[in-house]
Every structure is written in structure tokens, then in C-alpha cells.
């Protein structure tokens, strides 16, 4: 009966002599293989067995039927996601009859998940696997040194990403030592090259941070950064890793595993320089405060002087103020030049300060005809008893100085001191 049915189905001529099994199978084979040379079939994966040879064997099922499938190594190397039982896929390929077993199977040439892109699925699967291992834990993330002096960059030397990074570094921190680990960042199997470059750069002494970078591109272009090889190299790095891959909207597995994710290569360079920027700013504001504080202290001294007897006080403070003014003058120009922020306000105050120094300095008094007599040691002479005939002294006039030798010391004016 079965024989008769088959005859009908295959439109075979009724034969007087029976066919051998081989003959029949050969006919079935030619019919099936010629009819289903390129077919796409949707079903759920079951009984998936990756063979040690690299070939995959599984079945596609729906409620009522099962289709044995084989996906050989060459074909499955292009499949980005992990095939798993229960996954709904569209398999494309040709039917093949296997005479010794009297069976047939689909020789799969391509596999696509249903309802989700294969890239997305592969991403999700790897992410989940790494997450289970704890590799995406925030607690694992190491802090990036505030101001690294030597950094490693893993990227393609021909890519714009490297130029972007070097430009940003040069602009923001001219004092940084860069070591580049060149690697391709696009193409088949390139993830192993990247992983190796990440391992190699750790052998260079004193590297404090590694930047793994690549410019923007399609998800296929960026794919190598979504691979386990790169993820493992990053997660086992003994040096903190900053990942700067693609554009702001691109998130790769490498980004997730890295200690810090920068939205772009340029941003990665900026993150490395943030400490330099912070400390430069701190230095600038401290230097400004330093000037401000000494200025305030001098003004305070000025007010104190005004309250004292001007003549004595002037003489006493003359040396200190003169010294201070010299220091201020020597450093003012330099400091103003070196501070990168706008200093017009401070400049103005410094100018005032100088005017005040002039006012409280001895010049005005000297202008009235007084002179200051200074001893050889620089001290100011106030009492004739402090010198003896023959001593060298110096007289400071409003204009110029005189070198004098003491002729005679008269003890006292005979007047009341004030």
C-alpha cells in the first residue's frame, strides 16, 4: 500500500520489476536534492551538538515535524551568536539525502535568529555570560590615575581615532608619554590581534592607563570589540583600561568590561587628561590666592604704619617693605604671564599695591630733605652711639646714595625723643 502511495506521489510509472533500495533511494535523492537546492526554513533548535571537528549538528522542530540539520565549520564561523536549544531560527540551505541511513538533512549555509538581529543576539548572549562571571560588576572597575605620566594606546595606527587621541593629548597635557600598540581593528579574526596588543602593552614598564580605541563604524565594523577574546583581554589586564570605541551611541562589550567607558576616542584622551586640567586649575587659583593674600597682608601693614609714628616706623619697616617690593616686582610679570586665566582684576590690584608701597616707602619722606643712614650691615642707624669715628655708613637721599665716614659721634641732641 505504501508502495502504491509513493508511486502516485512521485508520478512513477508502474514497474513490473521491483527497484532495489539503492535505486529507489537514488531516485528519491535526485528528486529531493534538485527540488530543495536552496530553501529557508523556520523552526526551533533542539538537540544542538557542536562537534569537536567544529561542525554543528541539531534539529529544527515545530509542533508536528522534525528536520535534522548540519552546519559545517566553514558556514558556522560566520554565525555571530551562540546556537542554543529552544532558539527560534531561520536556517537556509539545501536538502541532502544520506542513503546508508535512509534519511535526509538540511545542510545549513546560513542561520539567523527570529525576532532579533543576529548581532544583537550575539551581544546579549556574550553580555549575559560575562555578567554571570561577574566581569561587568561595577565593583570590579578600577579607578583611573588622576594624572598618568605614561599611557598605552591600543588602536590602528592608520585610523583617525589615533590622530584624534594624540591631538587631544597634545592640546590638554603636553607632558604625557604615549606608547602605541598598533593593531588592526577591523576584519576577520582581528579580535585576537587586539587582545594580543592589550596583553603586549602591559609588558611596557610604568604604563598607568591603557586606552583601547577605534573610530566610528557599522556594527559589523565594530564587531571585534564585541568578542569574548577582547573582553577577556580587557578584564584580565593588570592596568586599568579606558575604552573609547565608535560614537557616543555605540556600546560594545569592550566598553562594558573596561574600567571606564569613554563615548569616543577623543573623550578617552580627555578623561586621561582630566587630572592635569583639574590640577592646573588648582595651581592657577592657588597662585592667584597667594598674590591676593600677601597683598592683603601688605595693606594691613600699611594701615598699621599709618597708626604709628611715621618717622620711626618708616625707618623700621623700610628694609622689609623694600625687600617685599623687590620680590613682588621680580615675580609679578612672570606670574601674570604664566597664569592662563584673565588676570586684569589682580593686575589692577597689584598696581594699587605698588603705588601704596611707593607711598609708605621712604621716598616721600626723603623728598622732604630727610636722609636715611644705613650701616654696613644694612641696618638703619638711629643712635649716634651705635657708630664710632671711622665707620663706613651710607646715606640714602631722595636721589642717590652717599658713602660716608663718621668723623665724630655726638651723644645726644639734648632734645626729648618723641
Amino acid at each position, binding site marked *: 500500500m505504501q508502495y502504491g502511495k509513493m508511486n502516485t506521489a512521485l508520478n512513477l510509472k508502474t514497474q513490473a520489476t521491483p527497484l532495489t533500495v539503492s535505486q529507489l533511494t537514488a531516485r528519491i535523492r535526485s528528486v529531493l536534492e534538485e527540488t530543495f537546492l536552496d530553501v529557508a526554513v523556520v523552526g526551533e533548535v533542539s538537540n544542538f551538538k557542536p562537534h569537536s571537528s567544529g561542525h554543528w549538528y541539531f534539529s529544527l522542530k515545530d509542533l508536528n515535524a522534525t528536520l535534522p540539520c548540519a552546519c559545517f565549520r566553514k558556514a558556522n564561523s560566520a554565525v555571530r551568536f551562540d546556537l542554543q536549544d529552544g532558539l527560534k531560527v531561520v536556517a537556509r540551505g539545501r536538502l541532502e539525502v544520506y542513503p546508508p541511513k535512509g534519511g535526509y538533512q538540511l545542510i545549513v549555509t546560513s542561520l539567523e535568529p527570529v525576532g532579533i538581529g543576529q548581532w544583537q543576539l550575539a551581544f546579549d548572549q556574550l553580555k549575559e555570560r560575562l555578567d554571570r562571571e561577574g566581569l561587568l560588576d561595577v565593583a570590579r572597575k578600577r579607578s583611573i590615575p*588622576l*594624572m*598618568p*605620566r605614561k599611557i*598605552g594606546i591600543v588602536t*590602528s*595606527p*592608520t585610523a583617525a581615532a*589615533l590622530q584624534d587621541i*594624540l591631538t587631544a*593629548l*597634545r592640546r590638554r597635557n*603636553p*607632558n*604625557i*608619554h*604615549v*606608547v*602605541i*600598540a*598598533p593593531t*588592526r581593528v577591523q576584519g576577520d579574526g582581528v579580535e585576537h590581534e587586539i587582545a594580543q*596588543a592589550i596583553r*603586549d*602593552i602591559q*609588558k*611596557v614598564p610604568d604604563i598607568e592607563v591603557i586606552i583601547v580605541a577605534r573610530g566610528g563604524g557599522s556594527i559589523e565594523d565594530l564587531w571585534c570589540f564585541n568578542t569574548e577574546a577582547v573582553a577577556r583581554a580587557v578584564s584580565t589586564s593588570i592596568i586599568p583600561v579606558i575604552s573609547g570605541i565608535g560614537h557616543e551611541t555605540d556600546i560594545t562589550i569592550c566598553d562594558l568590561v573596561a574600567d571606564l567607558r569613554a563615548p569616543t576616542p577623543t573623550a578617552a584622551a580627555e578623561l586621561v587628561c582630566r587630572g*592635569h586640567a583639574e*590640577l*592646573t586649575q*588648582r*595651581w592657577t587659583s*592657588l*597662585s592667584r*590666592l*597667594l598674590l591676593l*593674600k*600677601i597683598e592683603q*597682608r601688605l595693606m594691613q*601693614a600699611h594701615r598699621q604704619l599709618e597708626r604709628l609714628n611715621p618717622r620711626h616706623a618708616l625707618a623700621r*619697616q623700610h628694609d*622689609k617693605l623694600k*625687600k*617685599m617690593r623687590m*620680590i613682588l616686582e621680580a*615675580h609679578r610679570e*612672570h*606670574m601674570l604671564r*604664566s597664569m592662563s586665566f584673565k588676570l586684569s582684576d589682580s593686575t589692577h590690584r597689584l598696581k594699587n599695591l605698588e603705588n601704596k608701597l611707593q607711598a609708605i616707602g621712604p621716598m616721600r619722606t626723603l623728598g622732604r630733605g630727610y636722609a636715611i643712614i644705613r650701616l654696613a650691615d644694612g641696618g638703619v642707624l638711629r643712635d649716634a652711639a651705635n657708630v664710632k669715628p671711622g665707620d663706613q655708613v651710607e646715606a640714602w637721599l631722595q636721589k642717590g646714595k652717599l658713602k660716608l665716614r663718621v668723623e665724630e659721634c655726638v651723644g645726644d641732641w639734648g632734645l626729648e625723643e618723641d
Partner: protein
Amino acid sequence: MAEAVKSTDFETKLSDLETIVSQLEGELKLEEALSLFEKGLLLSQECELFLKSAEHKIEVLRKTATGVQTEPLEDNDDLFAALG
């Protein structure tokens, strides 16, 4: 040489400068204020030297039989050559 200055030394200098600035806010004799100011200026200048020294050094990693070594990058052509 600027390269010899460690960033930790720099951070120490910066906190010293910070201490001096806060001391200057207190009640000080003029002499003390002056000497602190001088110290502060010196620190400020040393910090500046560190911040502004341009030692932008770029090297390329090359594989050798025994491991890796770095070579200075003269220009971009070198960089391209590094890939072979």
C-alpha cells in the same frame, strides 16, 4: 629635568602651596608672611614647570623575538610602517 618630576611630587607641592595660602590668611608677622610668600612663589614656579613642560613623547610598541620593545615615533610614516 621635568620628566624626572613624579606627579606625586607635584601633588605634594600643590598641597604645600595650599597650606601656605591658608596660613597667609591667619595672623602673621610681616616677616613670617613674607617668608611664606617667598616659599609659596617658589612652589608655584616649580608646579608651573611641571605643568607646562612639554615632553610629549610618543613611542610605538614592536614585537621582538624575546618580547616587546618600544621605539620613538619620528613621524606618522613610522606609525604606518609599524603595521608592516
